């Protein structure tokens, strides 16, 4: 086993060649994810990846693992279910900002409350890529698209601040144009014993002509170089409030620990639900007595 593991490379985590638009930020995320898994010594059959619906979720076709490509907006509860059934299995969630912060935002907040041991990678491209570029909840005011011809009127959602306010135990932001930095965040997120959020700025070269690679390069900076202390919540909050149009911090904003969803289930103390699944009907006579 160990020998095979030693030989695993990014290729072992690839299936088909991606068909994203050339230059799409999803390539960077895909590469970083595979590099992280190789770095962590994982095997494709030792983990589950749950995908949302979107260009991002189409990664289901390009990566090798136990995968579940579910409903638009709903990957998080599926991931929680997998963790509850088999808490020995690392679970990663890949989804778009429309998926996770639009359709599924309720799950975002509640999964933060639950704190399952899951790594959540958000492809934050300010648009609904797969449905052809409508603004997503993170689109800046004034962003124009066929469904917002006079510009977006709503305030953009700040996923970092939202996660912090909701009590997330691991809040980070990466950039698809910085694969090396992303790998560090993903590795830290997968190692984090709890719900780890990696919000990835992902240029959509086809539909988002505002938040381009060049635009990001001019604004991003590394939090570790700025002597940010990720255990300092107040500092994390201040960083999350920096004007996005001017300065964009990358790295781990905040990290803390509290009991996970799985660790608090009495049924999971000895073994996984999968392992404890009966093969013949368990005795019910004690329960029957309640009704006699």
């Amino acid at each position, binding site marked *: 086993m160990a020998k095979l593991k030693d030989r695993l490379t990014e290729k072992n985590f690839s*299936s088909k060649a991606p068909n994203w638009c050339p230059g799409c930020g999803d390539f960077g995320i895909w590469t970083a994810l595979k590099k992280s898994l190789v770095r962590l010594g994982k095997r494709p059959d030792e983990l589950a990846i749950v995908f949302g619906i979107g260009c991002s979720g189409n990664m289901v076709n390009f990566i090798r693992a136990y995968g579940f490509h579910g409903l638009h907006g709903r990957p998080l509860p599926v991931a929680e279910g997998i963790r509850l059934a088999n808490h020995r299995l690392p679970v990663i969630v890949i989804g778009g900002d429309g998926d996770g912060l639009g359709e599924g935002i309720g799950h975002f907040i509640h999964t933060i409350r639950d704190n399952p041991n899951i790594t959540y990678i958000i492809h934050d491209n300010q648009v609904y890529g797969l449905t052809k570029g409508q603004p997503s909840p993170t689109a800046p005011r004034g962003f124009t698209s066929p469904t917002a011809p006079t510009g977006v009127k709503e305030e953009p959602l700040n996923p970092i601040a939202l996660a912090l306010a909701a009590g997330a135990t691991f809040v980070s932001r990466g950039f698809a144009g910085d694969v090396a930095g992303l790998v560090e965040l993903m590795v830290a997120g997968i190692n984090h014993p709890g719900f780890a959020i990696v919000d990835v700025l992902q240029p959509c070269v086809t539909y988002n002509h505002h938040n381009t690679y060049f635009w990001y390069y001019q604004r991003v900076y590394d939090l570790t170089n700025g002597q940010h202390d990720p255990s300092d919540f107040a500092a994390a909050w201040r960083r999350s409030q920096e004007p996005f149009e001017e300065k964009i911090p990358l790295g781990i904003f905040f990290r803390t620990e509290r009991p996970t969803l799985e660790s608090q289930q009495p049924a999971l103390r000895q073994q996984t*639900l999968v392992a404890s*699944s009966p093969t013949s*009907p368990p005795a019910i006579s004690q329960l029957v007595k309640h009704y006699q």
Partner: protein
Amino acid sequence: MVMPEPQTFNWKIGGVGGYGLQAASNLLGKTFLRGGLFVHVYDEFPSIIKGGAASGQVAVSPATLRSHRRAVNLLVCLNAQSVRDHVDEVVRNGWMIYDADELKTPPSVRPDVVAVPVRLTTIARTLGAEKMMRNVVSLGVTLELLGYPAATLKDIIREEYGRKGQAVVAEDLRAVDGGVEFVKKQVKKPFPWSLKPARRSSRMLIAGNEALGLGAIAAGCRFYAGYPMTPSSSLLQFMVKHGPSSGLVVRQMPDEIAVVNAAIGVSFAGARAMVATSGGGFSLMVEAIGLAAMTETPLVMVDAQRPGPSTGLPTWTEQGDLRFVLHAAQGDFPRVVLAPGDVEECFRLMPLAFNLADRYQTPVIVLTDKYLAESWFTTPAFSTRGLTIDRGRIAKSGTSRASGLFARYADSPSGVSARPLPGTPGLPFMANSDEHDQFGLSNEDPDMRITQHSKRLRKLQGIAKAVPGPQRYGASRGQMTILTWGSTKGPVLDALEILERESLSIDMIQLPALSPFPGAALRSALSKSSHVVVVEGNASGQFAGLVREQTGVTVEDQILKSDGRPFEATELAEEFRRRMKRYG
């Protein structure tokens, strides 16, 4: 006024929500059950917690009894409103006791009704018990009137309330005694009915939701998630209480969409999972039903119906979700809908539902309603004898190339292909809500679409052989057949039994499986009857329409009900009697 039925004694307590009416009817029901009698406990309450007219009733008989009764032999009124609401239900020469502390002047009732003032509040208070305890005082009164030993009730109070502490138990016991003493000292007129306990039997008094919960545990269910919604909440409550000690993870989740998707996640990962809700929550789950079908993930779902549309009548009953549930979620996929007709079927159909879900890797829906889910029925003790757990085809070892994916969705004659559980060495695959190829990779090729689509749909052929067919009850000379489904089975069978005593023989056909529909079997069963009547609890005859669609048989004669109340046996008997005159 309604006619009394020989043998059956019906007790009703009326007041407002929060008076402990359900507690009283459950305690009394169990007291009679322990005496080897057949009991049915039925509660009516509005969708508010405190206040609002509510009632509890207990029908009891030495012979088989499957449903509630409208005619009341003894009515207990805790307030003036309940007299007005229920006195018409009292049988000729029936009795009514009322709280004379609450109703200062005697209520005006029919001359044949014996109205007995009992200062229930004062009795409770003098014994050092709370006013709340007047429900228990009334039980003491009831049992003493019937000449039924109060000791049984006291045993049950000790068992059920023991965990609340000795003080509470002692108070309750004093309240029972207070009621008994009152009758001994103050009631001179003989009560027209008496009930004697027979030998205690092993029968159970259980609600549909509890039976489903027991069935799920017997089926090896590992995960239950729910979001509160009447009438499914009591199943969530059952699971919270009994699930963890049976090794389940039980979760109340933030909404029904999270509930069903989490269950799908659990099941994908390899453990049995179920969810339950009512129509509104089921609506939110609809998209995920298709997801389970498309990814071929087993899933067991319960819809406990209440009257719709929308929030409807939250605490009442109806069989109005049938068409919705049969067609829920876009596209074609094997649709499996089971509809237990009684608590025994609730228990038995759960292991079947789980086995079908696992063997055919597809969602299975179990359809109940408020009447079945949250009324208590007498039934033989459940046992796991004869039950099996069949997890279906699970791939255990590597048949895929080291660098590739496992052909999880390989086509097969039965439509079923082996599924590896995530974490199995060497068999990674993609479960995909997009149409996909044998590995689960998205695929829009027309041939692949047809291959995968027919693979999934083909499962119905196997499922059709595995589900129960039409069930025929009662003797028939072929004159008249009642065709029904779900909880209406109980009232219909009781009605047939009433008519049996009048030598009117009618039979009944009930369908515990509504999809796949046993069309051929039903068509041939119906061909033996000269007159068929459909009885179902909705306004549009949804089941009758389904029968017509699936068998070509048009049943014009339909007895429908959509006022939120369940069918009642004596009323049905009257309907059937009238028809027998015409068609018999």
